[in-house]
């Protein structure tokens, strides 16, 4: 059990035991890191688009967020809050309606290999072997073949897939595919990894294993990770900080620094408790998201006290 002394600042009326460690930052969202230039800086990001029926939909509004170099940031929100869209914006695959995205203080110009995305359905290329997939970004960069080979080997071993270099993607299990995707992303040596619910489609055991591996890789490589998930416990288990987005339009609602000692496990009671505090904050937005999804009839509601 963790015995860290952490200021208790829970605005929510739940009985959290002393050892709970999630805190709600009192500082303005995302501006807590002094004068150092953040690795990724979002300022006043808004995104709206026209739906098929012609109405204007405000997807994201006024998002301000700074991500420290080497930070593991988790973004949580109900489905439809635009958290995936936010990652697409940072990756440069989409352009915000207004606002600025800075990497090392410089505005981004479209996609760049300093920011690599890992998609939920992995986005690996089925016409290439595992090795060729990992090599792809380096090939686009024009690295010499010998160097590509060597790095491909290195990163495949890092995700424990050294033996599968010549397999095709469809021959691998879901967890192995996600590991290839991680290796492919790391091989371009990006500063920032953007992970879009990468483990959502995996079974629980595989996901636990990949949590451990991701935490290990993050510690060994020192990359900045922005990890999007709808799973609050996953966010608390992995993140240095958890940022909550509201449901449509997506806005930063609040943020929770997570100071629990690492390595963590999804089963740690401290993780559960911290997750509960986050979930309490999120409940209204989840319900609004559910209301929007179930326009009529039975509306399952998440009641207070139900854990994530």
């Amino acid at each position, binding site marked *: 059990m963790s015995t860290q002394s952490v200021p208790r600042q829970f605005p929510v009326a739940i009985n959290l035991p002393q050892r709970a460690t999630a805190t709600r930052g009192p500082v303005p969202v995302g501006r807590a890191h002094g004068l150092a230039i953040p690795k990724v800086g979002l300022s006043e990001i808004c995104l709206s688009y026209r739906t098929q029926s012609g109405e204007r939909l405000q997807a994201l509004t006024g998002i301000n967020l700074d991500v420290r170099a080497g930070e593991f940031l988790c973004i949580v929100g109900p489905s439809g809050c635009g958290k995936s869209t936010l990652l697409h914006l940072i990756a440069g695959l989409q352009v915000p309606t207004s606002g600025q995205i800075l990497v090392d203080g410089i505005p981004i110009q479209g996609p760049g290999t300093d920011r690599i995305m890992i998609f939920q359905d992995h986005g690996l290329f089925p016409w290439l072997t595992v090795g060729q997939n990992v090599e792809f970004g380096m090939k686009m960069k024009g690295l010499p073949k010998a160097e590509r080979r060597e790095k491909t080997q290195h990163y495949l071993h890092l995700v424990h897939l050294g033996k599968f270099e010549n397999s*095709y993607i469809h021959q691998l299990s879901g967890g192995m595919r996600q590991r290839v995707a991680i290796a492919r992303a790391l091989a371009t040596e990006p500063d920032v990894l953007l992970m879009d619910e990468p483990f959502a489609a995996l079974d629980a055991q595989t996901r636990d294993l990949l949590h451990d591996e991701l935490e290990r890789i993050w510690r060994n490589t020192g990359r900045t990770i922005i990890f999007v998930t709808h799973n609050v416990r996953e966010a608390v288990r992995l993140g240095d900080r958890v940022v909550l987005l509201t449901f449509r339009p997506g806005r930063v609602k609040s943020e929770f620094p997570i100071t629990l000692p690492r390595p963590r496990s999804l089963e740690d009671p401290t993780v559960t408790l911290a997750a509960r505090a986050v979930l309490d904050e999120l409940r209204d937005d989840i319900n609004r998201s559910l209301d929007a999804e179930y326009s009529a009839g039975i509306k399952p509601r998440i009641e207070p006290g139900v854990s994530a």
Partner: protein
Amino acid sequence: MKRAMRYIIFYAGLLGLWILLTELKIWPPYLFPTPWGVAESLYAGFADHSYWIAIRVSMQRVLIGYGISVLLGMVLGLGVASNKFLEETMGGLLVSLQSLPSICWWPLALLWFGLSQNAILFVVVMGSLLSVTLAMEDGRKQMPKIFGQAGRNLGAKGFKLFWYVLLPASLPFIVSGLKQGWAFAWRSLITAEMLYLSLGLGQVLMMGRDLNDMSAVIAVMLLIIALGYIVDGIVFKGMERRLQNKWGLAPAN
């Protein structure tokens, strides 16, 4: 093995029926040639090299014409698929043009290119271009968006993005269109070749007609079918099999 047996039985039966009909002598052999007559024509045609030459000339033409179609069709198809204006305007035109038999272009082709190989090539291109274009457009739309996103994300853009990502990603969706384009190219070629002294298979077939040698006509028809079948079986079946192995798709029988 069972399948091979079924093939043998079927084709033996067909041949038997042919022999039976010729043996009954309902029609004279110049109207209804015998299998032996056709076999003799085939042998003679290969022996005096005229079939070899015809095959070489026709294959060369269809490869050039089809090649042009594929290149042009890819550019056109991609253009139509990625531009809303083009899609709304040209998309409909392309579909309606497909109902036009390519040989309808022959009079114009003659006028523009004269009695030359280029006139034939033009008809071949017009015959297969539409299938390839429509297939490419469709493939580009069916292709999961994530491949393009992942490609751009990993630093591919412009021609590299097309060549290393968009093209291979859409291949499973365009292979049937490419195959159809090939069949149309082959048919258009033979039709066009029948219309003038062109040295190709079409002309050899017409020569059989001019000499009232129906055995030769049927011999060339068999050649045309065989060549079409071989290209389909070797090139396209091979391509489909490779795609299935890589993508892990179930074989489409």
